[in-house]
């Protein structure tokens, strides 16, 4: 039946307006994703009302294009200036920026593009052919299962992102603490706000992320450039692109990461930000050359990018099948679907099958567009790393201030960004990895909610995490990882190098 409906849906592709809208969205999305502070959620939220008056086959492809473009776009500054454009690209920055520092920026950008396109393609096929069965597995995930999944993600991030698991765990703990600022999600009591009303809503993540990644990177660079002459920091750039052999070598990693991304995307509540870390961590564990991770591994770039891009099509599954958005961006898309009279829910496919398969066809075509567009753009993008720091960094600072303000239109967010810059600088100096802190902040609300929901269900008994089979399995895996990390840190000498320092 899907094949038939796809054929029906392909008719949408004959509409040049639909294709043009998708392409425009894709290009806009890449720009938005590439600018630190402008997020895909914001872009889609601002532009969604304008699509209300367009045809569904024009408006929705435009928004889908932005979504896909932005998730890919986040990897560009992650690689070129070690500043992820979106939280989802934080894992990409580790190896991507290391490669760029070695002059291999083009290889990294191309690998990121290929991994994104392949993962997106596979996840779109999953969306088309197994949306309904996958969604019904995902909906069975209860609160105890989510609690353990969040815990699993945090342990994984602490374990894989820094030079030592202890420092990673410290960063995670700090992130959990910062995430507790603001309203208690259940009772509405305010926590750790010290009477500051601006903190009632919590510490906004995007300004903090901009400060910790972008501004602190600039502080570190400024300190270094104060001692060295500008000319000496130029990197000899290689024009070499990725080879067929490199793509083939990374393919198993890409496939595995796509699987992880597609599954996590289908679980409501876990987005690309989590998926990129789990995919990266898994790839590092399975790699023949794990020592290369963090020092410039093409496989690492591929794992992270495939992991976050596979989420996008998959996140549409619970949104369309149950009307349940998996993250904020699909929540906005849900609204756009509704405004077009396409009410997401169990009846959507029955009532609007051909239109939906038209969207799917467009998703596949935008993939091809992304590849062509990306390969063209990379020829120019890689030169960003060659822009003299005296020009590049002040421009980035201006963008940071603009971006941090734009999130909530709040001046207070500048203070958060600046505090983040100082904290990030201190962490870089102390060799404590920054990504675990940011990701922990992102995941803590979910973890806290599902933990407290589980405990309400069980009337306070912790046994609920053992009696539920999925949760029990995940708990065993978490215990295994913690045990392994503990054993490794005791039995091996301290690794000396860290990828966070510039």
């Amino acid at each position, binding site marked *: 039946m899907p094949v038939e409906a796809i054929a029906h849906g392909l008719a949408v592709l004959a509409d040049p307006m639909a294709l043009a809208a998708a392409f425009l969205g894709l290009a806009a999305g890449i720009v938005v994703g590439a600018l630190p502070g402008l997020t895909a959620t914001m872009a889609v939220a601002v532009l969604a009302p304008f699509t209300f008056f367009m045809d569904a086959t024009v408006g929705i492809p435009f928004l889908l294009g932005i979504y896909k473009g932005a998730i890919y776009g986040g990897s560009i500054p992650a690689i070129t200036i070690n500043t992820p454009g979106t939280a989802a690209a934080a894992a990409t920055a580790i190896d991507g920026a290391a490669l760029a520092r070695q002059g291999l920026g083009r290889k990294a950008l191309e690998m990121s593009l290929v991994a994104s396109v392949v993962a997106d393609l596979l996840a779109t096929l999953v969306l088309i052919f197994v949306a309904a069965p996958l969604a019904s597995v995902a909906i069975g*995930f209860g609160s105890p299962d989510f609690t353990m999944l969040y815990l699993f993600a945090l342990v994984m991030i602490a374990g894989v992102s820094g030079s030592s698991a202890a420092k990673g765990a410290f960063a995670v703990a700090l992130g959990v603490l910062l995430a507790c600022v603001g309203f208690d999600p259940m009772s509405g009591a305010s926590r750790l706000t010290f009477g500051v009303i601006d903190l009632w809503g919590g510490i906004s993540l995007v300004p903090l992320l901009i400060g910790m990644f972008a501004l602190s990177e600039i502080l570190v660079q400024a300190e270094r450039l104060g001692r060295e002459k500008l000319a000496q920091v130029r990197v000899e750039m290689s024009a070499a692109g990725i080879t067929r052999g490199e793509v083939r070598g990374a393919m198993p990693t890409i496939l595995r990461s796509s699987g992880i991304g597609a599954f996590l995307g289908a679980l409501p509540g876990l987005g690309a930000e989590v998926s990129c870390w789990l995919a990266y961590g898994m790839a590092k564990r399975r790699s023949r050359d794990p020592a290369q991770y963090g020092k410039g591994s093409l496989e690492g770039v591929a794992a992270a990018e495939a992991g976050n891009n596979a989420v996008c099509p998959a996140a549409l599954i619970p949104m369309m099948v*149950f009307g349940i958005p998996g993250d904020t961006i699909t929540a906005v898309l849900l609204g756009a679907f509704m405004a077009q009279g396409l009410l997401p829910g169990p009846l959507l496919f029955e009532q609007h099958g051909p239109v939906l398969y038209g969207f799917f066809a467009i998703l596949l075509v935008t993939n091809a567009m992304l590849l062509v567009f990306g390969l063209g753009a990379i020829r120019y993008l890689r030169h960003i790393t060659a822009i003299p720091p005296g020009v590049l960094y002040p421009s980035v600072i201006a963008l940071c201030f603009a971006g941090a303000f734009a999130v909530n239109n709040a001046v207070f967010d500048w203070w958060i960004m600046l505090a983040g810059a100082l904290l990030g600088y201190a962490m870089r100096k102390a060799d404590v990895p920054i990504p675990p802190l940011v990701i922990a902040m992102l995941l803590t609300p979910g973890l806290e909610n599902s933990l407290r*929901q589980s405990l309400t269900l069980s009337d306070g008994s912790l046994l609920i995490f053992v009696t539920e089979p999925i949760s029990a399995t995940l708990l065993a895996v978490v215990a295994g990882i913690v045990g392994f990390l503990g054993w490794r840190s005791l039995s091996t000498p301290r690794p000396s190098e860290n990828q966070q320092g510039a």
Partner: protein
Amino acid sequence: MTMRSTTSLAIGAVLMLGAPAPLAMAAEFPEKPITFVTPYPPGGSHSLHAGIITTVAEPYFGQPMISVIRSGGGGAVGATEVSKSGADGYTVLFGDPTINSLRPQVEDLPYTTEDFIPVARINYSPAVFVARADAPFDDLASMIAYAKENPGDLVYSNDNVNGFTYTVFELLKMNTDTDMKGIVYGGGGPAVQKLLGGETMAYAGAPSVVGEHIKAGTLTGICTTDFERWESLPDVPTCGELGEEIIFHFWRGVLVPAGTPDDVVAKLSAGFEELVKDEGFLRLIGRINSRVDFLGAEAFGALMAEEQAQLKAVYDNLN
């Protein structure tokens, strides 16, 4: 792409998001764009309504209306911010009973019910009590009977403490003298997911959230908290028909900070009254399964005063 073009695009984006448009020449209100504050995150019914309202607003006010989302604290952050903004009519809040009538009375928030003046009610939704298709009850009588026989075992999905679902379930428990267990999920989306996934048995939510599931048969409609049956769900009885007088309207309305001059309030109210008759507005509002139940400043104010007194009484009774 060169750095320069990315920079100018960024500046363009920032201008589009935040900067005021050039001032109009008119000497009377409004002389500049009006900021329309939605206190909830994007994607919910509030932001959806806000997007539609602000898109069609300009001809009815002679100035653009800029939609700003200030979420956090279950709506309290945005409401606080508007209450502290200038009382000049240029910043308006898209409020509801939770943040404007209930929570400021029962929680220690930085604003009170007196800090706002009602301008216009756009519409309302009742709550629809629903049960999972395979729950051990399928109508109000069997639901109450189950709760009486198994105290504390009837687990339901809650959205937020002192929120929409929370309030109607408290009313139901109080009226029927039963004990049920609510799990807080933070919003209608996750609340319905856990209900469908089997973690909970029941829920009460807006018709736009549960309607499609009732039609598909995955959820059973129990009753609605309105005086009459809801148009798009003609088979679901009102709670009153079944002998439990539970009326609760979750309205969406526009409010301004206390101290705003009367003529400004009147002008805004009149503008919204015309806006809700806009053809494009009506088409879009119909598409999102919503409708118009307009009330001007005076009638809306009377309704809110009554509602606040009623909710206060319910909560005093609970504690």
